[in-house]
């Protein structure tokens, strides 16, 4: 249905997204929001427990323990809500970026349903308290085999959807040999390409150790090697979460704010650098592991500094795009222009507030990655304090902001009570400020993470004020989460429809330079992919060979009595 008019600025195509594609994208968002709503119920339970209010006994026998709740909170929010929203969002950016349908629609649907089957398969043991191993599932803690099989299917499903995007790109490229890849489509492809490399670690960990072990085919695991495999994936996983928000910040938010993308070439460069540098630095999650030499930890610390650079680039380019938009709207002054941004637009406000808190998340990340500085904060509440600024705000609040135009676009209905969307964004921002700051301070005081501090015997009086703030922040965040789910649900189920011709428009920002003038090496895949493989081999090769050669499956057998 694509009618193409060639105008000076590359091919300008009008394209009508099919009903079934809209429904397909909507299905992703639906599963994502359901996962978020269930997962977010347990956040406050943990936060209240910190403040001495333990509600878990009242949830017996349905939910057995704080740790079962923590596993549900982690898996549903950090893995399911994110993965489904991301693959749904990238289905949209691929179709709308290339202005053409998916090359093999059934392939993407197979990917989606594989993820759904995997989700159900993993959810059953979690809900039966057979997999209270948290979302890092470090062996020798052993979950039911269905938990590992389910997670594998979710990852494999996301691969399949990724390949669906790659095939669509190849078909588009055949028709447009010389046109720069449209930015929002490119951002999705880059993220999914990085994801293919990233998930190799977790795939090997599950297929060679965790699954056969939980099925009783092998006697045990090598826990140190399992950690190395896990964190091979664990860190790029955070870029799998973050880059979709960057696609919106670079490629959509400037348009929503009334301006243009400040630099097309640097925006693309940032994504290429993330493909190159996301994987070869996983040891910064293992700085205090016994089985990794300090030299390799140091190399990965330096590589982690290098991947901080594309985020610094992003900070400049996105803020400059917003500044230009604000000045277009009459914003004046060195910083006063910020007031001229459309703060009455819930989608924009959510992403602006997400960006503000992300700056502090970035500083925390740089601290965690700083080799020996990690000794101060490792496995303390500083770490969840950090990632609630990154995945739970920069990413999640941005996804909420995206939903405020995406759900109206999918359903053809107006956003329900737009003013409430703005209030929801601010509530999340304020709740997170309180919660995250308290967690950071508690971490510096030595409070351990993943621990119901309400009952821990070693909690000094000094922590109690901050423990209360954790509960307060958690309560505010809970209100905000309920508001979000309520707004999105009401939007989808209301009868009122947008009049024909007044449908929601997908915001796609033009860039200040014609993308055709962006250098060619920022639109060619092979050199970057080869560089990525080489850098991973250099940064991980020797240690993987060493740790595999010295594998000791006897050292990681499941405890005779299950610890939970």
């Amino acid at each position: 249905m694509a009618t193409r008019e060639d105008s000076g600025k590359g091919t300008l195509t009008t394209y009508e997204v099919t009903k079934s594609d809209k429904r397909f994208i909507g299905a992703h968002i639906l599963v994502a929001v359901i996962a978020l709503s269930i997962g977010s119920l347990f956040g406050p339970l943990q936060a209240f427990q910190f403040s001495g209010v333990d509600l878990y006994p009242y949830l017996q026998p349905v939910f057995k323990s704080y740790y079962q709740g923590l596993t549900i909170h982690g898996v549903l929010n950090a893995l399911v809500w994110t993965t489904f929203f991301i693959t749904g969002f990238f289905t949209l950016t691929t179709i709308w970026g290339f202005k053409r349908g998916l090359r093999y629609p059934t392939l993407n649907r197979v990917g989606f349903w594989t993820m759904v089957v995997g989700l159900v398969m993993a959810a059953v043991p979690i809900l039966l308290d057979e997999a209270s191993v948290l979302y890092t599932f470090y062996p020798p803690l052993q979950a039911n085999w269905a938990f590992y099989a389910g997670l594998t299917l979710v990852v494999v499903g996301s691969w399949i959807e990724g390949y669906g995007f790659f095939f669509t790109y190849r078909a588009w490229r055949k028709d447009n040999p010389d046109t720069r890849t449209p930015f929002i489509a490119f951002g999705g492809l880059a993220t999914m390409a990085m994801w293919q490399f990233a998930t190799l670690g977790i795939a090997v960990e599950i297929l060679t150790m965790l699954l056969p072990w939980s099925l009783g085919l092998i006697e045990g695991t090598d826990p140190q090697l399992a950690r190395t495999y896990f964190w091979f994936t664990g860190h790029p996983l955070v870029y799998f979460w973050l880059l979709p928000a960057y696609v919106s910040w670079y490629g959509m938010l400037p348009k929503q704010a009334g301006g243009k993308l400040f630099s097309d070439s640097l925006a693309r460069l940032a994504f290429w650098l993330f493909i190159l540098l996301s994987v070869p630095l996983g040891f910064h999650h293992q700085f205090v592991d016994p089985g990794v030499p300090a030299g390799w930890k140091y190399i990965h610390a330096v590589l982690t500094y290098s991947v901080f650079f594309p985020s610094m680039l992003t900070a400049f380019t996105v803020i400059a795009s917003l500044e230009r938009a604000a000045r277009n709207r009459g914003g004046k002054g060195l910083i006063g222009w910020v007031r001229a941004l459309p703060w009455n637009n819930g989608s924009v406000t959510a992403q602006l507030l997400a960006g503000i808190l992300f700056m502090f998340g970035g500083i925390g990340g740089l601290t965690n990655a700083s080799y020996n500085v990690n000794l101060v904060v490792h496995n303390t509440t500083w770490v969840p304090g950090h990632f609630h600024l990154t995945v739970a705000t920069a990413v999640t609040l941005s996804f909420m902001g995206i939903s405020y135009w995406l759900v109206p676009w999918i359903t053809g209905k107006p956003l329900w009570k737009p003013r409430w969307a703005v209030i929801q964004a601010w509530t999340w921002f304020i709740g997170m400020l309180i919660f995250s700051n308290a967690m950071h301070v508690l971490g510096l005081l030595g409070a351990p993470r993943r621990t119901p501090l309400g009952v821990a015997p070693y909690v000094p009086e000094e922590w109690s004020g901050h423990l209360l703030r954790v509960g307060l922040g958690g309560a505010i965040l809970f209100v905000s989460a309920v508001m979000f789910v309520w707004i999105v649900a009401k939007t989808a189920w209301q009868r009122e429809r947008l009049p024909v011709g007044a449908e929601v428009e997908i915001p796609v920002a033009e860039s200040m330079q014609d993308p055709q003038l962006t250098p060619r090496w920022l639109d060619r895949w092979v050199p970057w992919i080869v560089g990525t493989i080489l850098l991973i081999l250099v940064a991980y090769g020797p240690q993987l060979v060493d740790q595999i050669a010295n594998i000791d499956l006897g050292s990681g057998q499941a405890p005779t009595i299950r610890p939970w």
Partner: protein
Amino acid sequence: MSEQNATQESMHIDPYERNWIRISIILLIVFAAAVTIAGFALGFQVPSPEERVDPNNLTGPWENPGLRELSPGVYDLYIIGNATTWQFEPREVEVPVGSTVSFYVTSTDIQHGFKLQDTNINMQIVPGQVSKLTYTFDEVGTYDYICTEYCGVGHAAMFGSLTVVEK
């Protein structure tokens, strides 16, 4: 930007953004230098591989964990964590002020964490591996060591304490 003609392929980097790129790189280099000095010159180091052991059959010093005085004021301290009683063994340790203690920690079953509060001793405890760091106690007082990695229902109660007493 304006000096290049608009039809030529180029990165179009705004001079301000070019300066920002320089500032970012310099900042990262300064932080890397500070970290490198602290690590390799001042002795703020992270654990390195110490020894592989069989968690199901710990031998040698592990057979009765606790303090070993190597010479006056210099100790080795062997500690074992487990997830059946969720205890560190030993749970109580006492050393004179000024002592230098090398912590050797391992697990008999699953992963634990070992964080000596108010110090930089912070280690992941992995069955089959020995985690080691050293610390010198200059001040009298009590330092709790707590488990910082989820290890089951008893995780929150898993801790011990080291007391530094007058010589």
